[in-house]
């Protein structure tokens, strides 16, 4: 019996991904850390650790704490800086046969523009703009909580960025759809959401916060319902592709986000627990489509009936 080929490919602007499974920034290193556990090339794309113009040492420890079905982190955007990223990491990426997304962060619109401009001259596939990190005072989150600023930064970066441009949104706002619309209007090719939710944990014995940074970003299965709700809300408002992020670890989670309207998803905290999970999800998603005789993944995307 002839089996029709299952098509998992999705598009973000002109960029075609072989499947919708991506990894989330800050949970997949530079990809090489995971090479023993999965075939990086089998993924739709990887988003690598966030990069700033200059190296950052990040926050003092303790930086992570486990919570119920989740974790809090306050890494503080520790990274090697743009120059070492270009000289040391990009050569590694060039060996991958999948898209590599650089996640950029800065303290000013000018920082973001310089990062986007430099990276547009490299072999990086796409750029994700982090205007949503909760863990540093100038982590760009200011840009992500005000629609006007989100519009301004998207517009400015767009002018310098010749690659597909993704704006990563924070959930720590009253109305995430307003920020998403601002990013769309500013010229983004896609929005990705959600970044972590600002949270906190206290050690009652020492009466001190469990994180040296006092507060940190909550991630993991605990945040999935919130992420899904926000993705659904944003999908109802914008016309550009939406990339769903937040507590995805099972194929059922992927399907929920696709049904809600996400064009692709990013796997985050689950990578830290099961380093081969993203690869497994590609296999399981393919199997799901075949078993359910769905020829094209587009048939699933946004097919939620309310």
């Amino acid at each position, binding site marked *: 019996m002839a089996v029709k080929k299952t098509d998992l490919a999705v598009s973000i602007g002109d960029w075609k991904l072989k499947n919708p499974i991506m990894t989330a920034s*800050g949970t997949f290193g530079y990809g090489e*850390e995971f090479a023993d556990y999965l075939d990086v090339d089998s993924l739709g794309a990887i988003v690598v650790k966030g990069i700033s113009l200059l190296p950052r040492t*990040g926050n003092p420890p303790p930086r*992570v704490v486990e919570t119920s079905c989740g974790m809090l982190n306050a*890494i503080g955007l520790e990274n090697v800086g743009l120059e070492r990223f270009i000289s040391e990491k990009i050569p590694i990426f060039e060996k991958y046969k999948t898209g590599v997304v650089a996640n950029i962060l800065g303290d000013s619109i000018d920082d973001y523009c310089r990062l986007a401009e430099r990276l547009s001259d490299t072999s990086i596939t796409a750029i994700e703009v982090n205007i949503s990190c909760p863990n540093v005072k100038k982590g760009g989150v200011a840009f992500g909580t005000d629609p006007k600023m989100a519009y301004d930064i998207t517009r400015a970066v767009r002018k310098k960025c010749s690659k597909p441009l993704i704006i990563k949104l924070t959930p720590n706002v009253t109305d995430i759809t307003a920020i998403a619309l601002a990013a769309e209007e500013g010229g983004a090719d896609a929005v990705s959401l959600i970044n972590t939710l600002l949270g906190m944990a206290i050690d009652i014995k020492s009466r001190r916060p469990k994180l040296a940074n006092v507060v940190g970003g909550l991630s993991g299965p605990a945040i999935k319902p919130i992420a899904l709700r926000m993705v659904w809300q944003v999908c109802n408002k914008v016309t550009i592709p939406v990339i769903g992020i937040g507590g995805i670890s099972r194929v059922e989670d992927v399907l929920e986000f696709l049904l809600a309207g996400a064009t692709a998803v990013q796997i985050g905290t689950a*990578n830290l627990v099961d*380093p081969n999970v993203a690869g497994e999800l590609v296999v399981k998603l393919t199997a799901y489509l075949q078993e359910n005789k769905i020829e094209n993944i587009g048939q699933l995307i946004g097919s939620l009936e309310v």
Partner: protein
Amino acid sequence: MTVDNEKQIRAVGEIKDIRCCSRDIFEIVIAQSSISRNAQPGQFVMVKTAVDKSDDPLLRRPLSIHQVQHGVISLLFKVVGRGTKLLASFKQGDYVDILGPLGKGFAVEQQTTHFLIGGGMGIAPLLFLAETIRLERPAEKIVILLGARSREELVAVDGFFAINGVEVKIATDDGSTGHHGLVTELLPGDAVGAVYCCGPWPMMKAVAGLCRKQEMECQVSIETMMACGMGACLGCAVQGVDFIENGYLHVCKDGPVFEARKIWL
């Protein structure tokens, strides 16, 4: 100088044995041929403690490899929270999901005498190290100094006594067995050789201080909060002596074993 790790894997291993050594300290023996073959002393594994694919506890627990024998690894752990409590409830014949071997382990120094100093649960990686040194350097002297709060908390020492020709000395805080006092007091003031240490932070600090004074090479194994264990999350940051120039070190990748002079200020 520490040893780079071999290929890491995620695998499911059958529990061959699990036993309570003392009150809240357990030894678990897991069949896993690849990890047992590739592991170096001082390396660790990340163990999933959640049962039935539960999301809680979410993160794996880092546990150092206590012993390696013909296709099995054994881990020694103390019940300190939800994860380790769940792990203690596993039964023989159950399967456990592990990643490993991870991190940089101990490097056996070019010395003819090796002092292995362990405090509390810090003895966990030292048995594997002692057996490895004995195997690779049959003629060299191994001195094992173990400290605990009391006789009751002194567990898994039989393994050390079973190694051919090692000298084992014990200290307890309450004097219930061995030397009444600190394990650091067992290190002779005129000792010459290499030191490998794992234990509570103050103990490792004291040992590193003694080694500096006596000009002995000292390696320490560090424990921290850890999420991934493989260098992705950067959660397990620790300051090295070159912090200002080079930023944080990460216990899971740069360690857990470090040369003491590179991290002690």
